[in-house]
């Protein structure tokens, strides 16, 4: 049931992003990252977070195991500075092969 998996992952991505922002309000944006294998159960939930307080070190994916029942999927978080985020958007800084930015999970109110 690919759609059910996709919906679960979307909700979990939001839950993770909200949790991170509660603890660290300096996170300015959060996006979901998806891949061509997103419908597969083994594919982790993936997030990109923009945080001016993080060290500028490029794209460093940090992976966490599943933590059922609330977090039934593994997850990956990529945290970048605002400058690095601009480079990702311009294409001069790459996400891992096959990964792409998807929906906005958090952004400041306009």
């Amino acid at each position: 049931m690919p759609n059910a998996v996709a919906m679960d992952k979307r909700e979990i991505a939001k839950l993770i992003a909200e949790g991170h922002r509660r603890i660290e309000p300096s996170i300015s944006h959060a996006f979901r990252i998806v891949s061509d294998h997103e419908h597969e159960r083994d594919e982790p939930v993936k997030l990109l977070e923009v945080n001016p307080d993080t060290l500028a070190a490029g794209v460093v994916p940090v992976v966490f195991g599943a933590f059922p029942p609330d977090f039934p999927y593994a997850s990956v978080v990529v945290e970048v500075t605002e400058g690095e985020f601009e480079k990702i958007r311009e294409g001069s800084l790459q996400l891992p092969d096959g990964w792409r930015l998807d929906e906005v999970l958090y952004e400041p109110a306009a």
Partner: protein
Amino acid sequence: MKSWSAAFARQAQSDLDAYELLAASALPASHRLHYLQMWLEKLCKAYQLKESPQMELTHQVVSKILPKLIEENWTRVGSKHRPDMKAVRNLCREIDLLHPQIDNGGKRPDNVEYPWAGDAAIETPALWRFGVAQRLTTPAGRLLVKVAASLTRNPVLFPDSD
């Protein structure tokens, strides 16, 4: 071990054991801080995505990754006390600076392994008063060590169940 992640996690456990022995000893602070830095570096490396070796960090791993581990642990496991993440990030930066190859562009030659040229004399790690040793006793420091030790010994967030 089945994976690099599992091997780094296992070595982090051993480094934590050594850190605790040294912390309980009368030896100079540089020795326990050396093991603290090695322990946390290996713990953080265990959580790096190994499918992308070109994206692996070799330096400043603690600054980049440990705050994320603490954040994720709080999000998933929860705790009564919300960590002060700015203080945690500052402390992580100080822990990275304990490594002799990380010196903030020459401004911070103090490190836990080798003597260095100070302002007026050659300084020695065993005799140096490391500010980070005191900062580990602050709320942010105690939380950092507690969460890192928990994630090392009871790796509930660990990506590889080897």
